[in-house]
């Protein structure tokens, strides 16, 4: 465990915020809390748990993290769940479902002792959801944490998973739009970013200067960036359209940075379209980066003048939060969690078309003072609302709340 982790965060968010966490956690001292997910590395859930667990431990909570194991068939099934819960209409055959349940049964037996004794168990996402039915003599409260955009799930698949999820004492959702009706309290906790992670730490100026030549960018001309997977809903082709509309007036450079698309046939198709649309324009930089290349993503965001997230559909949009944390205004699609972060005319602009994005880019490049001011407001907004310390405070509040059932006001002794 990193020593003085809380002190490191205090330097960023202030002592007052950390004091509040300590006071809340007093009521949870010694409590045994277990988090369970399906991977130790890669993906947002593992990233957040890597930090939340030591923070909880430093606050005196006996927090541990367990990871379930499965084979290719298991992950094939859970990948299908993931796609279906986000709206794809795919059927999953019975044998895959039985294998999914069997894998959870084996994991349940392995983790039985730790789960049975825990005061609170957090189960993350659908992969380990059936663990609850494999632990009938549990003594604590079990909470299902959904990190997925479940606003338009493929109903047959959700119906199947709901049979497990309804057994929990409560569930946690990132936005109210994602929450599905269940016979228990549906807590709302938006996600967060970690200011001490590679993706968000401050970068020395000399490393930023080096980055221009690494990526073939001109430091003298404005850089507009969208960081996202090559996914139709992120509208990268629309971003190129916006760039071309601006290019008639400003000599800008466009960076489209995203992860590879090897396991996603549709992603490959979108990437092909993006490359075709970019043509041989030397000022369009399509950067294929490994998903764990956090430092380079951080650098690219920091050397950009404006961040775009022109999605037509979006879950929460943590790339928006990251861009704002770097003090850059964000021009984002008027959808999902982007609306919660981009406050029109204050931390950026909400747009509905490539034309709208182009208009706002031109406005900000013309009014550099407004660009700087909005960037500062964006960073402050993230500081106050979307850092991991706020996420932790809400977890602690929820932990106290679930111990006191459903009363509105709780005053623990």
């Amino acid at each position, binding site marked *: 465990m990193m020593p003085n982790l809380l002190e490191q965060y205090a330097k960023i968010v202030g002592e*007052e*915020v950390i*004091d*509040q966490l300590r*006071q*809340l956690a*007093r*009521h949870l001292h010694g409590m045994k809390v277990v988090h369970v997910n399906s991977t130790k590395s890669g993906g947002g859930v593992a990233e957040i748990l890597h930090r939340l667990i030591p923070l909880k431990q430093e606050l005196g909570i006996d927090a541990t993290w367990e990871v379930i194991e499965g084979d290719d068939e298991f992950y094939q099934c859970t990948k299908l769940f993931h796609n279906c819960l986000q709206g794809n209409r795919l059927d999953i055959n019975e044998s895959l479902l039985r294998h999914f349940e069997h894998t959870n049964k084996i994991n349940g037996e392995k983790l039985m002792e730790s789960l049975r004794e825990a005061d609170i168990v957090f189960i993350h996402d659908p992969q380990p959801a059936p663990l609850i039915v494999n632990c009938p003599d549990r003594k604590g409260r079990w909470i299902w944490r959904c990190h997925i955009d479940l*606003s338009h799930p493929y109903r047959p698949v959700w119906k199947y998973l709901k049979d497990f999820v309804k057994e929990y004492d409560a569930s946690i*959702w990132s936005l*109210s*739009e994602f*929450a599905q*009706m269940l016979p228990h*309290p*549906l*807590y*709302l*906790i*938006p996600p967060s970013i970690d200011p001490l992670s590679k993706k968000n730490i401050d970068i020395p100026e000399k490393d930023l200067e080096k980055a221009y030549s690494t990526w073939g960018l001109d430091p003298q001309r404005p850089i507009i960036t969208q960081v996202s997977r090559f996914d139709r809903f992120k509208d990268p082709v629309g971003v190129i359209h916006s760039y071309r509309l601006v290019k008639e007036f400003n000599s800008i450079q466009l960076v489209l940075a995203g992860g590879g698309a090897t396991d996603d046939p549709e992603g490959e198709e979108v990437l092909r379209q993006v490359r075709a649309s970019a043509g041989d324009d030397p000022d369009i930089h399509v950067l294929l980066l490994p998903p764990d290349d956090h430092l380079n993503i951080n650098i690219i965001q920091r050397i950009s003048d404006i961040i775009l997230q022109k999605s037509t559909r979006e879950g929460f949009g943590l790339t928006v939060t990251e861009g704002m944390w770097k003090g850059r205004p964000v021009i984002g699609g008027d*959808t999902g969690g982007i609306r*919660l972060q981009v*406050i029109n005319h*204050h*931390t950026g602009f909400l747009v509905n078309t490539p034309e709208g994005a182009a208009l706002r880019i031109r406005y900000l490049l013309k009014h550099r003072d407004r660009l700087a001011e909005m960037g500062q407001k964006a960073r402050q*907004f993230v500081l*106050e*609302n*979307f850092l991991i310390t*706020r996420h932790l*405070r*809400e977890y*602690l*509040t*929820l932990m*106290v*709340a679930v111990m006191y059932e*459903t*009363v*509105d*006001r*709780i*005053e*623990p002794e």
Partner: protein
Amino acid sequence: MKMREPFAVKDCALIAIATGEQAQTLRELRDRLETTSTSCIYYHFWGGLLRARFDDPEYQNDFAVWAYRSLHDKALAERLALINPTDYHYLEDLRRELIDSIEERLDESEYVPWAKSSQRFHFVRSQIVVFDTDTRIEKPYELPGLLQHMSPGTIFYHFIDARRRPPFGRDDFTEWIAGFSQNYHALTDALESIDPYFTNLIELREELSLVMSKNMLMKG
């Protein structure tokens, strides 16, 4: 809080809970408002102060924001935004006022205002966890200095949430100071005249601090 006892500084944290109720049209909003819990009404008027929200919103309550952004009904948004929850000691009265404003708008409209499916109103309630900070204040003159170090949650609990607790409609600071002597009349009057609604908790803390410092100086 009993008079003259030291002031126990408390803090609070809020956690939001989706009720699963939704509205897509103004009529649906009215219907849901008839039956939803008062804690929902409370959350949509006051919860913004303690949750992720921009400090300078165009409209202070969630109903007005929805009317503006999703129903695109500016007249309704303006009327709903003007409903000041501090004017109502009981949440049931606030509910009635809200419903009356909506019904008035429905009567005026040739069609029922509606939102896109992706922009429905989602009803949310909250649980508040209150905890002791272990700070105790013996005399009113200590308050201005300590106020500056109080968290937004503390300001919310003592100056806003207090109005929901007996004696209804009064904040904890005023209630405690009033127990000392008649000398503090001017201060308690000044505190009671602060409108906590059209502001954020940091600005409210500054305003409280200013009012207290000014009145203590005048006295001393």
